[in-house]
């Protein structure tokens, strides 16, 4: 017994010692032009992007080019495309103070804490020092900013989210493109009556349904509502909050989403839409290669079109303001930032946009033109053109805004609300409680 106690005491002492590894010293995050010699070495980028996607392929190529002039340099790309697993990895490494030179993160409350501790280089200063800041689309940078306006992440993409629809199915049900968000429930009823699934949604990944909760408040109260809500300064019981809760309940009541959507995945939902079983599908321009080229099912190819997020009566945001994310951003670790990292970033960031635009994707910068693939349908160009006509405000996805615990709870409760398992009142009280309990710790 005595021995056990001794072991416990040793373990506790060691735990204390190890716990100390969470705090580390960081160099000055605003010093973006380190002086000294460029000494090539291997640097790592911890990222959460598709393993064979354009960003990774281009950065690999650019790193190889850079290594030709700088023997000994290499870029080690460590990708974890599955976002929850990635976040776990990132947070564990951050806690152990072992973040690599470059790492991906959204502008989450957790990332903001890292930034406040000076662990990320000031990206605004960095981009300005590289003389590329003005090339970036303001909304691509704004998406990466924290609430206080500070910028610590660099975007590599720019996407626009649309509601894609099947003209033939809408016609069959005798409905037209909704003019207001409030028209959608009635539209769903008509589609259901015609035997058509109104909206295909990937319920398994949870973020697609979470987009819907953001729409009404964005129209009703603008981008400020979520900023206040996440800190507990606004509530779901406020008018904008109540409107979204009621609207989601009515979407559920009208059976807008496919039966059993909560266990259906990304490709299930997309297949339902592209095979002509579902009438609408909410997704971003990253799916242009499958929705606006000849890869699309020839049976539905000519029936597909899209509309942007509808407004509402009394909407405070305009029709050209909707969800336009620039994807997960790349942060630069201030502790390991040196002349080499700076020199490589200068090389890569100036060459990246043209390479990226050549793949048919929207660059986060405006200095290049996206190449439209040879097999594209007219929709491809139409979708890209929307990028040049965006308003100043953008709807932020709530999963990047809320604290992780509240976000997890919201994703769960949303499914129950839409399925009709809980009442709007129950939803409101559960979520307001969750925010009251969890927000103060994160946003103090």
């Amino acid at each position, binding site marked *: 017994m005595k021995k056990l106690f001794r072991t416990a005491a040793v373990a506790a002492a060691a735990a204390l010692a190890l716990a100390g590894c969470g705090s580390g010293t960081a160099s000055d995050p605003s010093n973006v032009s380190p002086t000294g010699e460029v000494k090539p070495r291997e640097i790592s980028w911890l990222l959460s992007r598709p393993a064979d996607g354009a960003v990774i392929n281009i950065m690999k190529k650019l790193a190889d080019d850079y290594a030709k002039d700088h023997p000994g340099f290499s870029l080690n790309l460590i990708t974890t495309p599955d976002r929850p697993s990635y976040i776990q990895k990132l*947070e*564990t490494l951050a806690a152990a103070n072992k973040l690599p030179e470059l790492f991906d993160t959204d502008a989450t409350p957790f990332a903001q804490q890292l930034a406040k501790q000076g662990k990320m280089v000031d990206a605004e200063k960095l981009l300005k020092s590289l003389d590329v800041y003005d090339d970036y689309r303001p909304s691509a940078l704004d998406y990466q900013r924290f609430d206080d306006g500070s910028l610590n992440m660099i975007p590599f993409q720019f996407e626009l989210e649309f509601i894609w629809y099947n003209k033939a199915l809408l016609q069959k049900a005798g409905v037209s493109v909704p003019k207001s968000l409030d028209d959608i429930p009635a539209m769903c009823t008509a589609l259901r009556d015609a035997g058509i*699934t109104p909206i295909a949604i990937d319920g398994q990944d949870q973020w697609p349904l979470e987009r819907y909760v953001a729409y009404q408040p964005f129209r009703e109260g603008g981008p400020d509502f979520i900023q206040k809500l996440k800190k507990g300064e606004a509530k779901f019981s406020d008018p904008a909050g109540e409107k979204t809760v009621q609207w989601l309940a009515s979407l559920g009541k009208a059976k807008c989403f496919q039966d*059993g959507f909560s*266990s259906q995945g990304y490709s299930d939902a997309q297949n339902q839409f592209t095979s002509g079983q579902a009438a609408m599908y909410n997704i971003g321009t990253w799916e242009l290669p499958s929705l606006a080229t000849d890869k699309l099912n020839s049976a539905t190819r000519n029936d597909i079109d899209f509309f942007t997020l509808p407004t509402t009566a009394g909407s405070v945001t305009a029709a050209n303001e909707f969800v336009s994310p620039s994807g997960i951003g790349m942060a630069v670790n201030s502790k390991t930032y040196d002349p080499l990292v700076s020199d490589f970033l200068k090389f890569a960031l100036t060459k990246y946009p043209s390479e990226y635009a050549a793949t048919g994707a929207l660059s986060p910068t405006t200095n290049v033109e996206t190449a439209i693939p040879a097999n594209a349908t007219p929709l491809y160009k139409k979708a890209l053109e929307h990028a040049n006509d965006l308003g100043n405000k953008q709807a932020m996805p709530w999963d990047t805004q809320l604290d*992780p615990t509240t976000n997890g709870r919201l994703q769960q409760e949303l499914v129950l609300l839409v399925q009709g398992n*809980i009442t709007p009142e129950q939803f409101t009280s559960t979520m307001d409680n969750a925010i009251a309990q969890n927000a103060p710790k994160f946003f103090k």
Partner: protein
Amino acid sequence: MLPNRSRLSVLVFLLPPLLLYGVAVLFPIMQSLFLSFFSWNGISDMEFVGLTNYVRMLTADDVFWRSFFNALGYLAICLVLQLGGALLVASLLTSMRRGRELIKTLYLLPAVISTVAIAFLFVRIYSIEPVGLLNQLLHWIGLGALERPWLSDINSVLTAVSAPEGWRFTGLYMLIIYAALLSVPQELEEAARLDGASRWQLFTKIRFPHIMPVWITTTIMATTYGLRGFDIPYLMTNGGPGQSSELLTTYMYKTAFTAQTSATQAPSPCSSSSSAWSP
């Protein structure tokens, strides 16, 4: 009492595994226990909060209790399917004359399929839009009224996520129980039969008592595996819809790794064991 020399050799042989155990198992447990008295998200300042995390978990956390009872339900369903199913199949096997090996192999097969494949397979089976195997079968046999999205219905989801786990290991326990049943002395059964015992009596008075020790071991094994069930529910529903299929294990995982707010089951970020139960 061992002579001194062999006592030393026992120590020499025991010490390395004990040290390994201490570093890999005991230390992370102690560290987690220690961290559970703090409010800490990994990068914030550690704040000592005493028993607050525990008080909140036991009194104010509705999800904790929900997942606790779900875990019990999950365990019960798994045990019934695994042990009950195994006993039934094993008993039937002993009375079969031909094709035993084939049946055994078929039943054991799911145990060697990867968990991820099983989870995806059952998501398809339970699906309603497009219609999956289960709903199609119900429709064909005239039970169309029972068709439902099994994984989205809060009343059926717990059973639906437990069944694959139960199905998966039935074959394994069937093998163990079958082996035990084979060891029942033939002469005992023969004597009982001569005395006019029915098949049921034969089973309850002779066979089952004889395989009791094996049965207990199997129950312990199945319970242990059932309690740590994580991957299939996590992959199929991620605890949803709502908290309807949230188990203690999946909730623990979420609290520790994705929520990062309370240190109730805080990970030990500096030791490699923190990813011990990632899927």
